[in-house]
């Protein structure tokens, strides 16, 4: 029977929740890296026992952790204890927590500043890794989306990291500015049918696509409309909260923007709104059913100034038509006095039949539905605030 492994990043450590295919009884392991912020952890599609985790702290900075046994044990891939820190010829060995922006002339147009909150130029400064996206085919290749916004890649299992500088060199980087949560690159979508195509989203710069493996990038924001920027239809400045796609249709993208749920049917070249009958179209998460490319999930949040569900009722909304027509899914979810948030990385789906849907809250609950959202129950209720949820479907 198949199994699932739910990888949960929280403000105070990582937890791994495991169950068989029934998804009724759960084993809770953790906290791993207790006391540290775990913005994200994710498994390799090519080797499910290979996991990567972003561990960070306002005091001690960024750490990258790797597991080769499904999360039982972890190590920092670039800095094994007790080994020399230099190669025999004296060169420093890779360090897995070293993220250095590319400033070389050879690799494009490296930038030195972006806009700060007050519009003044600000040098790029690495703060943390928000998102880790392992390659679909190579367990040793993994992408990292970081704050201040940039895209990095490791091809040696996380030992060393190199910036894909073409993104910051897009030509608009000096206009990027942080949102309230920081200027983070939080979404990385890999096209399973085209290894050279990739999508990224940056809060609050916008969304970008490469068709040449990261060398050049195009802003994909046509059709977005944001009243909180001087020109609501500008190419740059839209606060994209999350994007999702179904692997069978990588040209169809769904987006939860700061306000508005959006859809693109042409690889992001243009977008149209599909908020439809949602009670509010503000929110953070969005995801797609594993077997139904037109079935989409969001969790509406009241507003940008009130980050909790409308009327204290936690609802997932599901559209079976790719947007516009949404139904509230409430069975098993709190329908009174609920004032949690669901952050942008905190929803995922498994690929069992029926599809399982999972999300975590800032109140420390991780909810699961084993029937595509019809009914929900909490796997755990009292974790630290949940930052991210990922799911692995295992044989």
């Amino acid at each position: 029977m198949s199994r699932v492994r739910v990888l949960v990043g929280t403000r105070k450590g990582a937890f791994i929740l495991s169950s068989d295919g029934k998804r009724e009884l759960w084993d809770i392991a953790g906290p791993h890296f207790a006391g540290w912020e775990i913005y994200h952890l994710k498994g390799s599609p090519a080797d499910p026992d290979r996991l990567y985790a972003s561990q960070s702290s306002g005091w001690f900075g960024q750490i990258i952790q790797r597991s080769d046994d499904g999360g039982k044990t972890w190590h920092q891939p670039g800095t094994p204890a007790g080994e020399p820190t230099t190669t025999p010829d004296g060169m420093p060995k890779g360090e897995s927590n070293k993220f250095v922006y590319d400033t070389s002339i050879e690799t494009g147009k490296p930038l030195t500043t972006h806009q700060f909150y007050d519009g003044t130029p600000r040098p790029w400064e690495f703060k943390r890794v928000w998102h880790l996206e392992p390659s679909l085919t190579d367990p040793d290749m993994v992408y990292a989306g970081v704050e201040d916004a940039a895209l990095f890649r490791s091809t040696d299992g996380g030992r060393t990291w190199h910036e894909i500088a073409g993104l910051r060199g897009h030509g608009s980087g000096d206009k990027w500015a942080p949102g309230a949560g920081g200027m983070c690159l939080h979404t990385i979508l890999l096209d399973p049918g085209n290894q050279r195509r990739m999508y990224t989203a940056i809060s609050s710069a916008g969304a970008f696509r490469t068709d040449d493996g990261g060398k050049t990038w195009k802003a994909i924001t046509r059709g977005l409309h944001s009243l909180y920027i001087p020109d609501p239809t500008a190419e740059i400045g839209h606060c994209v909260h999350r994007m999702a796609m179904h692997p069978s249709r990588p040209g169809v993208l769904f987006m939860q923007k700061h306000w508005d749920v959006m859809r693109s049917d042409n690889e992001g070249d243009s977008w149209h709104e599909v908020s439809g009958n949602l009670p509010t179209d503000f929110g953070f998460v969005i995801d797609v059913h594993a077997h139904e490319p037109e079935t989409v999930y969001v969790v509406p949040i009241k507003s940008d100034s009130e980050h909790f569900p409308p009327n204290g009722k936690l609802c997932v909304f599901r559209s079976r038509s790719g947007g516009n027509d949404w139904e509230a899914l409430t069975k098993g979810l709190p329908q009174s006095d609920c004032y949690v948030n669901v952050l942008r990385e905190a929803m995922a789906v498994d690929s069992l039949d029926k599809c399982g849907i999972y999300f975590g809250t800032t109140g420390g609950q991780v909810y699961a539905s084993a029937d595509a959202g019809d009914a929900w129950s909490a796997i755990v209720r009292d974790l630290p605030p949940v930052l991210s949820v990922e799911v692995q479907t295992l044989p």
Partner: protein
Amino acid sequence: MIRVTLPPHLRKLAGVDGEVILEVAGRVTQRAVLDALETRYPMLRGTVREHMTQKRRAFVRFFACGQDLSHDPPDTALPDAVATGAEPFMIVGAIAGG
């Protein structure tokens, strides 16, 4: 022999209990102690000092002999009591928050 105390998160990261004992050849300075620490425990690189600038991270403090040495230049000699091992060089996570 130099004695170094680490905050709990870094002790766990380095896999050590209690104080760390280091040998520092030559003049005992903040930089020399941190260099020796990072050589012995490479997983701590970037956690006490920034990778590129080698500056102390903002919320890390250095105490010894009842003094806050955080703002001393990194090549200033540490107190004799630290150099002889009589007192530890303390790396501390600054109090922040309520």
